[in-house]
């Protein structure tokens, strides 16, 4: 029974195939029709069948539309307006100095990646949690210049008034030697200028040994954090840092001037003998070197009985092979009799 069913299905499928093919053909392009004129040309050999077919297709194919010319905006002088590397945009300046910093790391220009920013900020947060002196870092680009009209110290005095003492560093990425150190007024009174300079310089020194800009900032911050510890101690003790006394500098200068004067007078007194001695030494060295260069060496000639009938020479020296770079010269010294080796 099942065999009969299979047979019927197969037969029906065979019968349906031409109908399906006709439907498919209707969907596609019609086959080319031969005109009598073409057939005559083919018979005469004036054209090839393939040519006719392809030409037909070419005729049917529509030429591609010409590419549209894009309406590009003309470059005006305003499009070439690039911010110079020394300039900070007004909007960024507002973010830097418009209010008290909300974060210990201030980078409105996004000079660091998000991860780098987070890492540095976590260090600064840790420092502030561990210390009584806060540590703020304002990050600028390498060549940027803060406009002169911004009164940084007065702004910070205003922002940090009544709060915790703070150290604010302006750090220029890639140029740690341009860093600037600002202290809140109460801390400024406790920490002397010398200490501030030393702190800044030692932090710069730690930064410049690194090659990457971000690593430099790391080194700078770590060292500054250490120095802040000493500032904190000075602040806690309430000792007001002594000013560098100008008298001391004057004394040093006077001493130095006296020493220079003494040395000058001594030199003037012994000038001639010193010059003479130097001249003699130089002439001696030059003469000696010339003499050594021109020195000739002689040998006593002895009467020597000829050997092996050689009238002039029979002195056999060493023989060395330089075939291998792996073996030392002593191993390549040839002591083998020639008649065993080559002859």
């Amino acid at each position, binding site marked *: 029974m099942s065999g009969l069913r299979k047979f019927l299905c197969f037969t029906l499928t065979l019968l349906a195939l031409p109908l399906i093919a006709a439907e498919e053909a209707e969907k596609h392009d019609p086959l080319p029709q031969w005109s009598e004129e073409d057939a005559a040309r083919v018979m005469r050999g004036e054209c090839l069948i393939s040519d006719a077919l392809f030409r037909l297709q070419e005729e049917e194919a529509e030429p591609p539309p010409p590419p549209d010319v894009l309406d590009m905006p003309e470059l005006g002088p305003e499009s070439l307006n690039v911010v110079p590397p020394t300039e900070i945009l007004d909007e960024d300046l507002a973010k830097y100095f418009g209010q008290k910093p909300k974060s210990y790391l201030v980078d409105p220009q996004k000079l660091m990646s998000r991860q780098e920013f987070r890492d540095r900020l976590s260090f600064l947060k840790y420092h502030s949690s561990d210390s009584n002196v806060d540590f703020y870092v304002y990050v600028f680009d390498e060549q940027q210049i803060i406009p002169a009209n911004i009164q940084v110290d007065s702004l910070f005095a205003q922002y940090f008034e009544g709060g915790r003492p703070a150290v604010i560093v302006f750090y220029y990425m890639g140029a740690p030697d341009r860093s600037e150190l600002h202290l809140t007024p109460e801390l400024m009174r406790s920490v002397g200028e010398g200490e501030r300079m030393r702190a800044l310089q030692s932090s710069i020194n730690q930064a410049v040994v690194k090659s990457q800009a971000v690593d430099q900032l790391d080194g700078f911050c770590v060292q500054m954090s250490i120095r802040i510890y000493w500032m904190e101690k000075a602040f806690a003790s309430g000792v007001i840092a002594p000013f560098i006394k100008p008298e001391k500098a004057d004394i040093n200068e006077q001493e130095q001037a006296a020493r220079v004067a003494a040395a000058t007078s001594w030199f003037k007194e012994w000038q001639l003998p010193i010059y003479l001695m130097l001249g003699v030494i130089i002439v001696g060295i030059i003469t000696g070197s010339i003499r050594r260069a021109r020195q000739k060496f002689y040998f006593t000639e002895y009467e*020597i009985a000829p050997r*092996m009938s050689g009238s002039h020479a029979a002195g056999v020296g060493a023989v060395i092979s330089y075939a291998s770079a792996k073996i030392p010269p002593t191993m390549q010294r040839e002591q083998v009799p020639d008649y065993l080796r080559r*002859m």
Partner: protein
Amino acid sequence: MKCPRCVQKIHRGAEACPHCGFCLSIADAEFGSVEVIVRTLTDAAGLMRKAERSLVQEAIERFSKRFPQLFFAVYTGVFRESACLRQFGFWLLNRGAFEDVALHRPNAAGILLVMDVEGKAAGITYGYLLDPYLDEDDTFQCLSKAHPHWLDRRPDQGILALLKTLEKILKKKSRGARKDPKSFKRKVTPPPQIGDLVKRVRSGPVKNASQKYDAATLAVSKEESK
């Protein structure tokens, strides 16, 4: 003093090697018995470039100025299997006429460096004048200084290094010979004949060190004659 062929020690004044019988006539049979005209720098193998040759030539001239009795010569060649460096050096220093060497510098005052380009080997031969002043170890010292340069295919630099070391050694030997000439003379003086020694012994008692040496030599000679 060694034989150029069998590298065995030979005594002073030996007509031929007592071990292998080598002498100049055998070398003549190998290389030719007529004199050959060569220069102090004969680059027969074409080992060096023109600039390198001039560099070496300048160094050779400097050497000649520093040591007015001596001359240094270089020969580069391909020696295949028919000859060897020692024998060739021995033959060339006896049969060669160095045309750019002054007549007052005989071949006996020559130091010859022979380089085998194919076999990659180099050897030094020297004349009778240098017998008391140079030995195999000295020459090896010079060659070992040149060795790294030759391995590096810089023959000119190797020769310059060799010459520098050779100059140092010869300067030292020259100063030493001026201070203590006897020690150098002793190296080349032929062994005294028994008859002469007997005469000296009869002439008087031993007074100084040199006479003591002669007496000791006499004793050894007597034992040998027995």
